[in-house]
């Protein structure tokens, strides 16, 4: 017989049955009952109403039973604070039980119950348990201090628990030391203050305990050591000597935390010999991490990526271990590939290229594309390998697999930019594949190549012409490129056909397009060509700076910061914690510090970001020599495009292709949320519902003199718990005097729900790298929260309407001229019309509406009485949450207005 049977009761009336069993005098029946309740709790049934009966089972000799009741108590005490007090006596009694397991259990559970009255009673037992003779009780009590701090920091201060915790760092038992340390680190995290204050003395104690404590304790100690602030090389040597053997631990977390410590000590140590010796010892454990589960490998690979950037020599000879296995999960393969590119060198390039070629013939499209890009990136970074890379690319292109061809063209464009005038002989092969190009980036790349080498391609004009036929339908990226390439062609070979083409393109781009970027650029060319063709040559055909491969390379400051975060989420995302940690408190504290760090964003799994963003702004800074249109913004063509990463096309033009810059499509006028002239920033925005999700439509206007980037959005707790899905806004850098729009998807975060009377108020913080953190308040329109699935049955509505207490109706000054269109509008806004009938004895008609408010999941019921064509309507409202009335009236008014 097994515990599975406890899940099987699903019939009605089971709560009653549970009650019976819990009250049974028979021990085994009682225990069965408790197990059934826990099973019901596990599958998500609400068993809160059994609280008193469960509490009655608490006093028992049966340890297993006691644990289950305690577990229940932790889950439901918060919902039943008054009843929870019943448990206090048992807790206090248990905390003095002769059995250390029960003493520990009591103090551990009490700390998890966040009910004020219980917390009061926790202090004395905790005081005792911190001094308990049994180390098991002490190690549990140590963590309980951190729990208490999370509930009530003042209490911890008042009772001197912090000092007691620090005393435990000298405890004779290694596990107690480790837990006391962990508790202090947690408290540090919660409070944002330095709680550890590691002295030389404690340092020695920690190093001693490191040898004897559990694997997890070792991680706690190692993470504390990594944060130990010292500039003394002797300290570094001492620490490293003790930590080095830890790299051979079987537990991956111990290994990676040990590596973090050693990396840190390498920065401090001044002996090059020692650093070299440590480096040598670090390679095998890093490689061993790749033998673990794929998920562990993934975390390891993200960290190895950082290590390789900082100290490339450590794994210089190990590129082979990163070769992808056929059945590695795709997320592992992608990371391995990235590291292979970083480790590729003159010495191993032949082998690495063979691998890439192999991968480029696999089945997963994303992986294949990345492999093709990898070949291109190696060509750009290793000059001597460029030719070999090109040969491999040509071979791949010849196989005519569509997406391989497209990707191949894109990387060859980069190779041309890196080594101008060297490999033009392959253009013919590329031209054979012209027809198969259907992706904008590939097309744009090919068009760029044709324009750039127009003088060497005999039929360049014909080739471009084939693209021109479809000019109006092309993606804007291709259009921009076609425009520039046609101008290049014309300047290089001013034949009759080129002349015809240029006038065609210029007229298309100025008259038949809505895209302001394209139009502006065409006008610039037009004026340039008509006033001073020589200047046009200087600008359009200018020498371009050579590019380098810096995709995924982090800037030094950020890299050092991330290396101190090895093993943490920050190291996985390659972003400093401030970018995703949502606690307002932390965000504010670190805001100033953050401004000092400029970083280029990298493609991050999970929290995807815009990799092309950073450069756009920089482009503008290279000011044009001739102020052509008396515009402050808008870049010069190709004149002085800054060198940038492989992969994007926009910089080839030096122009700004990102739609959000310079006078983009005019956004609808949204209410101004914040206008801060001193920071040069205006934010307009509104919360609305789009495609079934709550969306924050934002317009950010940068009126300052410098580009704006690193935009992040965070919300405070509010009635509905609204918060952004991604804290980091998917908005590229905003050039001066330009505007960006963003539609930020929002979600309900139940931990952000602010209890108390409902309010539409939402406090928002917006952060940018330049302006720091800015706060504003907005109102959440209830209409945006109404869910698509919010309709209920007529009968259910009727029942609810009858049972709920009546509220005062509100008179809205609105006139409805067409009741059917009003119904449609309500329906479209997720206020579902359940009934429409005339009110007897009057000329009025009544509409019965309902909707479900997301986040708090509350049904609202509404009755509207009106006479068609006559101003004024009476709206009545009923709901479990009567405090939603005002917001609901506003919503109805907004929808019908």
């Amino acid at each position, binding site marked *: 017989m097994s*515990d599975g049977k406890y899940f099987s009761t699903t019939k009605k009336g089971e709560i009653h049955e549970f009650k019976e069993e819990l009250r049974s005098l028979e021990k*085994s029946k009682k225990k069965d009952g408790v197990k059934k309740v826990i099973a019901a709790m596990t599958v998500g049934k609400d068993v809160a109403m059994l609280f008193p009966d469960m509490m009655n089972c608490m006093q028992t000799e049966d340890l297993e039973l006691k644990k289950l009741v305690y577990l229940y108590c932790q889950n439901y005490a918060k919902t039943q604070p008054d009843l929870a007090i019943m448990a206090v006596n048992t807790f206090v009694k248990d905390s003095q039980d002769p059995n250390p397991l029960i003493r520990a259990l009591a103090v*551990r559970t009490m700390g998890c119950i966040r009910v004020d009255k219980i917390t009061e009673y926790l202090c004395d037992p905790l005081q005792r348990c911190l001094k308990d003779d049994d180390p098991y009780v002490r190690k549990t009590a140590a963590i309980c201090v951190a729990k208490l701090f999370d509930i009530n920091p003042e209490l911890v201060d008042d009772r001197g628990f912090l000092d007691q915790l620090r005393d435990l760092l000298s405890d004779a038992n290694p596990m107690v030391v480790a837990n006391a340390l962990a508790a202090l680190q947690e408290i540090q995290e919660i409070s944002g203050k330095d709680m550890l204050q590691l002295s030389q003395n404690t340092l020695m104690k920690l190093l001693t305990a490191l040898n004897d404590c559990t694997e997890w304790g070792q991680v706690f100690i190692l993470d504390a050591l990594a944060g130990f602030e010292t500039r003394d090389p002797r300290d570094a040597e001492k620490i490293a000597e003790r930590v080095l053997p830890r790299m051979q631990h079987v537990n991956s977390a111990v290994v990676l935390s040990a590596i973090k410590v050693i990396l840190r000590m390498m920065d401090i140590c001044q002996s090059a010999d020692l650093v070299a010796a440590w480096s040598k010892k670090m390679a095998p454990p890093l490689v*061993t991490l790749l033998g673990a589960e794929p998920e562990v490998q993934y975390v390891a690979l993200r960290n190895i990526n950082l290590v390789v950037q900082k100290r490339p020599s450590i794994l210089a000879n190990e590129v082979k271990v990163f070769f992808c296995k*056929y059945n590695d999960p795709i997320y592992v393969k992608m990371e391995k590939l990235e590291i292979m590119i970083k480790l590729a060198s003159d010495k191993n390039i032949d082998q690495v290229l063979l691998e890439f070629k192999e991968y480029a013939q696999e089945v997963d499209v994303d992986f294949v594309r990345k492999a093709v890009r990898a070949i291109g990136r190696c060509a750009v970074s290793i000059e001597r390998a460029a030719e070999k890379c090109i040969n491999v690319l040509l071979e791949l292109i010849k196989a005519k*697999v569509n997406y391989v061809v497209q990707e191949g063209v894109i990387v060859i464009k980069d190779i041309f930019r890196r080594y101008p005038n060297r490999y033009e002989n392959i253009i013919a092969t590329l031209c054979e594949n012209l027809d198969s190009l259907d992706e904008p980036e590939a097309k744009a790349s090919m068009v760029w190549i044709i324009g750039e080498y127009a003088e060497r391609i005999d039929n360049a004009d014909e080739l471009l012409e084939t693209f021109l036929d479809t000019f109006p339908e092309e993606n804007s990226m291709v259009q921009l490129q076609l425009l520039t390439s046609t101008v290049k062609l014309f300047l290089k070979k001013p034949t009759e056909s080129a002349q015809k083409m240029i006038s065609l393109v210029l007229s298309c781009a100025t008259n038949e397009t809505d895209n302001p970027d394209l139009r502006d650029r065409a006008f610039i060319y037009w004026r340039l060509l008509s006033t001073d063709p020589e200047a046009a040559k200087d600008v359009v055909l200018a020498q371009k700076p050579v590019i380098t491969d810096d995709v995924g390379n982090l800037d030094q400051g950020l890299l050092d910061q991330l290396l101190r975060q090895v093993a943490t989420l920050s190291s996985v995302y390659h972003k400093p914690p401030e970018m995703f940690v949502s606690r307002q408190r932390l965000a504010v504290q670190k805001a100033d510090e953050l401004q000092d760090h400029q970083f280029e964003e990298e493609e991050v799994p999970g929290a995807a970001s815009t990799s092309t963003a950073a450069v756009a702004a920089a482009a503008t800074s290279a000011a044009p020599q001739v102020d052509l249109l008396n515009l402050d913004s808008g870049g010069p063509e190709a004149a002085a495009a800054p060198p940038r990463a492989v992969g994007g096309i926009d910089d080839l033009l030096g122009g700004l292709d990102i739609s959000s810059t310079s006078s983009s499509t005019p956004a609808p006028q949204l209410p101004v949320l914040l206008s801060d002239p001193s920071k040069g920033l205006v934010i307009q925005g509104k919360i609305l519902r789009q495609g079934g999700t709550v969306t924050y439509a934002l317009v950010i206007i940068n009126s300052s003199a410098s580009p704006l980037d690193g935009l992040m959005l965070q919300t405070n707790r509010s009635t509905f718990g609204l918060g952004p899905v991604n804290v980091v806004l998917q908005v590229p850098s905003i050039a001066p005097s330009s505007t960006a729009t963003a539609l930020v998807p929002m979600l309900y975060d139940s*931990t952000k729900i602010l209890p108390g009377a409902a309010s539409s108020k939402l406090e928002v913080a917006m952060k940018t790298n330049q302006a720091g953190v800015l706060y504003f308040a907005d109102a959440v329109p209830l209409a945006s929260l109404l869910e698509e699935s919010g309709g209920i049955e007529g009968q259910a509505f009727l029942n609810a309407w009858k049972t709920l207490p009546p509220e005062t109706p509100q008179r809205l000054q609105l006139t409805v001229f067409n009741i059917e269109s009003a119904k449609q509008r309500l329906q479209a806004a997720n206020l579902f019309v359940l009934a429409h009938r005339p009110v007897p004895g009057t000329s009025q008609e009544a509409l019965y509406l309902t909707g479900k408010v997301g986040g708090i999941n509350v049904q609202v019921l509404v009755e509207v009485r009106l006479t068609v064509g006559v101003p004024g309507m009476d709206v009545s409202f009923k709901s479990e949450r009567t405090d939603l009335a005002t917001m609901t009236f506003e919503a109805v008014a907004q929808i019908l207005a």
Partner: protein
Amino acid sequence: MALSSAHAIYFFNLRGDILIERRYRDDVTRDVAENFRTQILNSKDSSAIQTPVRTLGSCTFMHLRHADVYILCISKNNPNVMLAFSFMTSLVSLFKSYFGGDLNEANIQNNFVLIYELLDEAMDFGLPQITDPTILKSLIFQKGSSIDFFEKKKEKADPNATLQVTGAVSWRKEGIKYKKNEVFLDLVEQVNLLMSSNGTILTSDVQGRIMMKCLLSDMPELRVGLNDKVEDATFHQCVNLSTYEAQKVITFVPPDGEFELMKYRCHDGVSLPFKVLPVINEMGRTRLEVNVQIKAAFSSKIYGINMTILVPVPDNTAKANLLVTNGKAKYDATKKALVWKISKFMGESDHSLRAEVTLVATTKEKKPWVRPPISMQFQVPMLSASSVRVAYLKILERKMGSEYHVDKWVRKVVKSGEYIIRT
């Protein structure tokens, strides 16, 4: 940086139903876990690569798949991610050890009370505590569901259990007694190979493990000496790492019963037990000729067993005519491969498989066949693939001294890891 790696831990089945919910802090709710199902497991966005770490709003989701179960840690802020994953993998082995079987949906449901009890000891306030089964078994005696729950033997609680589990030698109890002292040491080597189609070895390495079974009385100290060929090793909690660092001798007081003493890895001097020479020719669009030759590169005194060779063939394979010089071979449509099984493969011998594969002619233009690699499974008892040797195994019991007699058994075996030959 936060150590706390799980504000809550969840177990899901593949449908995304919650099997176990254990919250360690109350800033995470069940709704948040529902987000995992809707936004990560059943995410409609197929373009994004599904990484095991994702952040939605203020919560970070770290998940791991084992058999038909997802394990999920939810955390906030900037947790130690490696700690979280390492903890989850430890939970898997902990549960397996208690269940006496694999960790899967059925076993989780059948043992949920036990699991809650274990989770209580394994983590507190999101901080991992004790996950070593040998240690926990002195605190939680309940067995997995394979033993009848009500008839389980009530073990007596050890009054010193709490002292022992927190102490320096937490993994071994005092006062263990055996009539006959025995120790078994197995050197298990897994050899991995990635070979290119032209026979070049791209990568090869050996992942070795030393598995111990100690049936020893009292508090013995064991010393294992290896020839110093070990490039990279990791050790069980019981091994004194500092002594190893200084003297290259593995010194330890063993846990009672079976455990993995160490793992190691060798790149150089790997002797591959089998050489494989595949020749696959595509003869037009409807026929394929396959010829795979395998050579055993070890002494003729020993032999390989339980061998399976998988030779992938295209999806549109209709039938295959096979001829082998040893064992049995057939075309397996579900695996899309020719499966060749050999029960005994003598050293220094060679065998081959010849096949003529007929393909169904397809009318529409297909992508060329990607030629997945050939993979191979085998075991060769009494062989080493690396040059690692156990030089000695010494046992010392301080109280008993020379009165302490032990029977020692040392064995070795080579197994296939990922033995992959590209075609």
